[in-house]
C-alpha cells in the first residue's frame, strides 16, 4: 500500500508544481509587456479616493479572534468524525451511539460558546 501512496505523493507534487508555475510564469513574463509608469499617486493606497487618515494594521475587534478559536476546536472534532464515519456504515447500533456521544459533547461546546455570547457581533 505504501507503494501506491508514494506514487500519489509524486503525482501530487508534479501537479502542485504545475499549479504553482502556471499562475507565476505569465505574471513574470508579462512584466516585459506591461507598462510601468510609477507615479506618486499610483502607489498610494486607494481608500475610495480620499487620503489615508488612520494607519491600517492597528488593533481591531476581538470578535474575529473568538470565532477563530471556536473554529479550531470544531475543526478538530470534524476531523475525528471524518476518521470514524467511513466505518459507521457496516457498524452496529452501539458504534452509532459512541459516535453520537461524541457529537453531543461537541454540541455542548457550541451551546456553551453561544450562551456565553462568544458568537456575537460579526
Amino acid at each position, binding site marked *: 500500500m505504501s507503494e501506491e501512496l508514494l506514487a500519489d505523493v509524486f503525482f501530487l507534487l*508534479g501537479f502542485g508544481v504545475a499549479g504553482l508555475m502556471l499562475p507565476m510564469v505569465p505574471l513574470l513574463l508579462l512584466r516585459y509587456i506591461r*507598462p510601468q509608469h510609477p507615479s506618486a499617486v499610483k502607489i498610494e493606497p486607494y481608500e475610495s479616493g480620499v487620503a489615508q487618515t488612520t494607519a491600517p494594521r492597528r488593533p481591531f475587534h476581538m470578535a474575529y479572534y473568538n470565532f477563530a478559536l471556536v*473554529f479550531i476546536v470544531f475543526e478538530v472534532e470534524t476531523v475525528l468524525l471524518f476518521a470514524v464515519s467511513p466505518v459507521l456504515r457496516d457498524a452496529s447500533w452501539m458504534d452509532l451511539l459512541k459516535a453520537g456521544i461524541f457529537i453531543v459533547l461537541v454540541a455542548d461546546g457550541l451551546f456553551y460558546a453561544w450562551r456565553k455570547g462568544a458568537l456575537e457581533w460579526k
Partner: protein
Amino acid sequence: MEVNWPGWLDFDWLDLSWLELPWIDTNWFHDNWYGLLLLGFFWGVLVFTMVGALTAVYVYVERKVSARIQGRLGPMETGPHGLLQTLVDVVKLAVKEDVRPAAADALAFRLAPLLVVVPAVMAFVVVPFGVPMVIRDLNVGILYFLAVPSITGVGLLLAGWASYDNYSFLGGLRASAQFISYEIPRTLSVVTVVMLTGSLSSARLIEAQADTTWFVLLLPLSFVIYVVTTLAEVNRVPFDIPEAESELVAGFHTEYSGFRWSLFFLGEYAALTTASAFAVALFFGGGLGPVLPPVVWFVLKTAVIIFFAVVLRFTLPRFRQDQLMALAWKYFLPLSLVNLLLAGLIMKAVF
C-alpha cells in the same frame, strides 16, 4: 458493488493508456518517480488550462444570464453576440500596469493570490467524472477535496493585510472570518455523505450511489447545507460582502490590478466550478445516467448547478456581515450537527 455499464462507457479515458503511441510506453509513467512527476505535471497544466478556459466561458454565461434577468442584452459588440468578450478582457487584464501600494508587504502581496488560486485548482484532482475516471483516485480523496482549499483562508487574510489599506484589511478579515465559519457546516454535511459511502475515496462515492440511489434523495438536508455553505465559502451572493462593490470598494482585492487581480477572480470561479462538480459527485451520482456517456451527464449536471448559482447571484440581496456569521454559527452549525444524527438513522435504515 459492480457497476455494469456497456463496454465503451465503462472506459477510463483519463488513464491515457489507450493512446497507442509507438514511442511512448504509458505504463512507464506509473513505474518510476520521474514518470509520476511528469504525469502529475502534465495533468496539472491540463487542468489549470481547462479551468481557465471554463472560467472564461463561465464569465460570459454569467454576463449574458444576468443581462437577461435584468432586462438587457449583455455583451454584444465583441464577436458575434459578444462571444469574444472574455478573451478581450483577459488580454486587457494581462497588459494592465501592475500597480502596487508602496507600503504593501511584498511577500504577502505576491503570495496571497497564489494561495487563493492554487488550492482551488488542486482540488480538481479528486473530482470523479465517471466511475473509473478520476484524475487520481486518492484513498482519502474526499478529505483531500475539503482540506486543500482550506488554505484559501490564509490567502484571503494575507491579501487584506498586505495591501496597506484600511478597507482592504477589513475586507480580508471579514472574508477569512466568513470562510472559516462556513467550513465546519460544509465539512459536516460531507461527513454525512461519507457515512453512506463507507470510504473516503471519490470513486467509491459514485459506486455507492450506483448501488443505492442518488444521495440527494437520501440526504436532502445535507445537500441544502452543502450548497449554501459552499456559496458562502466562495464569496458568492448572497454571501459576497467581502467583495461587494458598494461596501468596501472591492474588499480584500482592492489594491490588486491587472493579472494579479485576475488570479483572485480565477480562484473564486475555479473554486465554485470545482465545488459544483463535487456536489454533483456527492449528491447527484456523478456521471450516472442512462444512454449518454458519463462525462456528458456529469457536465450537464454541473452546468445545472452552476446556472443555479448564477441566477441566484442576481436574485437575492446580500447578507450583512453579522447576519452572515450568525447564520453560520447559530443556524447552520447546529443544523448540521442534528443532520449528523439524522444521517446516522437514515444510514441504518438503508443498510
